[in-house]
């Protein structure tokens, strides 16, 4: 992928200021994290055509067909208090949803906290890793995998995964999609840096169909059911159960 082409196409000020492209990498998050540890400035993007150890949360692997999709990581230094760190998860999903909407006639949906769905199936995975030192945030590496032109998925993934190309029926220009994501990440990032976290929450909510509906949340072996009411200040999910309101910070949401 031509980094000059990406650089020239974005209007981005912060995100994508530095771009490192690799044909083959173990994991873009690992590379970006080591750059962050060495003092890399915010906005740097690490892109790989192919990852040998692409991964998701809790060591799950992220499978992506070479040359078809986008796998990249972004170095962020959000000026955010540690208790509001969850907003960063919303931010990633929001930027991707906005970019997909911008690049297609599709209607992406955000799923709490950081998934992006097309027609109920996952088309984007985000793995955000933050580094804290002495109680303060050093930075966040946000790894983003977007299924752009992949048409074939394994049997296990077929029920839950999709791509932009499957949903539109067309081949998309990957660089255009990447540029749109970078531009969106830049725009929303500036909101975070200016302290406008409420704008991030409100924009995110507009992409999420869960509010006002009954949802179930599973976290390890425990389940909780209630009506999704709102996002809390820190991005947590406020649920109304039979007896009271609670705030959820972890778990997988299912619409009932």
């Amino acid at each position, binding site marked *: 992928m031509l980094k000059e082409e990406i650089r020239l196409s974005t209007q981005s000020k912060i995100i994508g200021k530095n771009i490192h492209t690799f044909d083959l990498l173990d994991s873009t998050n690992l590379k970006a994290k080591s750059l962050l540890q060495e003092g890399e400035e915010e906005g740097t993007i690490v892109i790989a055509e192919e990852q040998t150890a692409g991964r998701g949360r809790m060591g799950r692997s992220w499978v992506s067909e070479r040359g078809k999709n986008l796998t990249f990581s972004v170095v962020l230094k959000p000026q955010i208090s540690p208790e509001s*760190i969850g907003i960063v998860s919303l931010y990633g999903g929001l930027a991707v949803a906005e970019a997909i909407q911008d690049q297609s006639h599709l209607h992406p949906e955000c799923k709490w906290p950081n998934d992006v769905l097309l027609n109920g199936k996952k088309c984007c995975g985000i793995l955000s890793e933050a580094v804290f030192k002495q109680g303060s945030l050093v930075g966040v590496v946000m790894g983003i995998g977007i299924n752009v032109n992949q048409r074939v998925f394994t049997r296990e993934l077929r029920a839950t995964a999709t791509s932009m190309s499957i949903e539109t029926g067309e081949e998309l220009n990957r660089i255009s999609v990447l540029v749109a994501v970078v531009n969106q990440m830049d725009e929303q990032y500036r909101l975070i840096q200016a302290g406008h976290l409420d704008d991030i929450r409100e924009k995110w909510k507009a992409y999420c169909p869960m509010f006002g509906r009954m949802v179930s949340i599973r976290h390890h072996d425990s389940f909780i059911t209630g009506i999704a009411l709102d996002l809390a200040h820190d991005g947590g999910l406020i649920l109304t159960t039979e007896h009271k309101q609670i705030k959820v910070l972890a778990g997988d949401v299912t619409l009932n």
Partner: protein
Amino acid sequence: MDLTYLKKLVRIVEQSGVDEIEVEEEGLRVRVAKNSHTNSSIAHAASAQAVASPPSQAVQGENPASQPAAPPATPEVKYHEVKSPIVGTFYRAPAPDAEEYIQVGQTVQPKTVLCIIEAMKLMNEIECDIAGRVVKILVENGQPVEYNQTLFLIEPV
């Protein structure tokens, strides 16, 4: 689970021979204990926190005589405490089948990753800030942690 119900639980424990009682309802778990050495009453489900005052506090506040929850013993001052900078879920390893970051007795350096705290799918690596030896790990894998909760005791070297 309302306050009256919690009060009833406390009364049952007070008036009976049992040391503690644990009730789970709709994913919310509450433990009321006489023994001051047991952990604080807990109330969590899917790492949920009550938006209003959590039941654990209600139990303590309303029934001081029942001694349901003494704070954990104050760690000896000579140990360095590593605290949680955020609210989330504590993990000792990067993946369920992966090796744990550190063990008790292990020597650590500044920058050694001690654990992960997950909040809203954001994995927060907590690094050690001094050189030393791990004396105690105060939280179990997969348990929710609060802001500023002590996670590790490190003996400086």
